């Protein structure tokens, strides 16, 4: 497998998709940690479904999938923030609306069933300059805004009355976080696939929450797990000629299983 690394580095055919995916694999777990802290991780699956549905609607209207998906997800993120829709029931409706719309558009448009499958499975190897630039932009926005957002997110989690008591507007940072999450999931859904994107939000954070000694390390560990597993999945999918999305999800789930075993071992040892 390791002989593939020079191929990745040199072959432009793989370089763009590889870098695009790596950027997203570092970003999504950090957002996943924030969503897990806010108990909103299921929202990621809802946003991914809505992004997939709007990508297909965009394709049917002649827009690139990544653009249609991003617009739809941004709209969903804005509606979620402004209506303060939170809780499992709201996220379940997001998933159901997205799933229903996606399959109905796929069944009733020229883009057809195959593109619907492509979005569910992911089409990383077809990621081009647009996807790379959007991923770079999202990473840059996250690197710039998350240090400002993080204290507000922690304060809202542990001191939920502070903003109301002091009449401070919370909607701006909540909307900002929801839009960043929605756009990231839309770009990731168009490249890594619906379940690949969701798994990168959910699993590295799930592992990091169990192992990290602090919040800072939770974010670092989640990003490292996301990037490391992505790298392993990219190489394994090429070496074994397997679809990338399912390999990525399988490796992430295996990592979660290992973490659970370590946890069981620790608790039985004490």
């Amino acid at each position: 497998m390791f002989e593939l690394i020079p191929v990745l580095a040199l072959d432009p055919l793989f370089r763009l998709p590889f870098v695009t995916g790596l950027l997203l694999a570092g970003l999504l777990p950090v957002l996943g940690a924030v969503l897990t802290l806010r108990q909103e991780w299921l929202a990621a699956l809802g946003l991914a479904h809505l992004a997939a549905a709007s990508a297909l609607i965009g394709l049917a209207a002649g827009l690139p999938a990544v653009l249609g998906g991003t617009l739809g997800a941004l709209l969903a993120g804005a509606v979620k923030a402004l209506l303060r829709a939170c809780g499992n029931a709201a996220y379940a409706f997001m998933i159901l609306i997205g799933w229903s719309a996606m399959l109905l558009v796929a069944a009733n448009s020229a883009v057809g069933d195959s593109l619907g499958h492509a979005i569910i499975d992911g089409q990383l190897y077809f990621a081009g300059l647009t996807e790379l630039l959007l991923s770079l932009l999202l990473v840059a926005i996250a690197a710039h805004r998350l240090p400002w957002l993080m204290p507000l997110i922690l304060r809202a989690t542990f001191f939920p009355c502070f903003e109301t008591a002091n009449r401070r507007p919370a909607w701006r940072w909540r909307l900002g976080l929801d839009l960043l999450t929605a756009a990231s999931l839309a770009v990731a859904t168009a490249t890594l696939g619906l379940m690949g994107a969701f798994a990168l939000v959910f699993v590295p954070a799930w592992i990091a929450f169990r192992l990290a000694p602090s919040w800072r390390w939770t974010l670092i560990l989640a990003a490292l797990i996301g990037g490391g597993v992505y790298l392993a999945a990219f190489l394994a999918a090429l070496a074994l000629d397997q679809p990338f999305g399912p390999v990525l999800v399988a490796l992430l789930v295996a990592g979660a299983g290992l973490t659970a075993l370590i946890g069981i071992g620790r608790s039985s040892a004490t």
Partner: protein
Amino acid sequence: MTLARGDVLLRVSGLTAGYARPVVGPLSFEVRAGEVLGLWGQNGTGKSTILKAIGNAARVFAGRIEQAPGLTLAFLEQQPARLPLMPVTGHELLRAAGAARTEAPPALAAILHRRLDRLSGGQYQLLWVWSALATAAELVLLDEPTNNLDPDAEARLVDLIVRPGNGRAVLLVSHEQRFLESACSRIVEVSAERESGCSS
């Protein structure tokens, strides 16, 4: 905001508060800089609703709540947030609260490096209350802060509350009269009878 001891930070006049309908009041009291004021009453008398009305989380049906200009509030409800997993240390909690610059009491300083979910319920509750007391907020609202604390932890809580805080005032709600007598400079009784209001 510069405070002089005795400045009025909060004036509640003829307040009737509730949610869909009134549940408490009318009642009147003032909170001055540097004092710890306790609101005492039996369960169900609407003490928490008074704090929520001050914290803009309950409806004011009648009366007025006046705050000193520029007043910052710290408001802790009855229970700290408890997530199944909390990979956040005490240091990070204090930073999030804006309380990192104040030196924590030794018993709390010793546990600040630990994850919140690896603290006992009492340790977490004391740290949570300290994180509000050590902020720059001029008025701290604490709702039943003794919940789930054993007598030893309750005594440490009293120590935290009565520590001098740069003119900061505390408004405490509790149904435990003995605790309020230990922690407060003044106690106002909230009666179940809406007409009878309160007495101090």
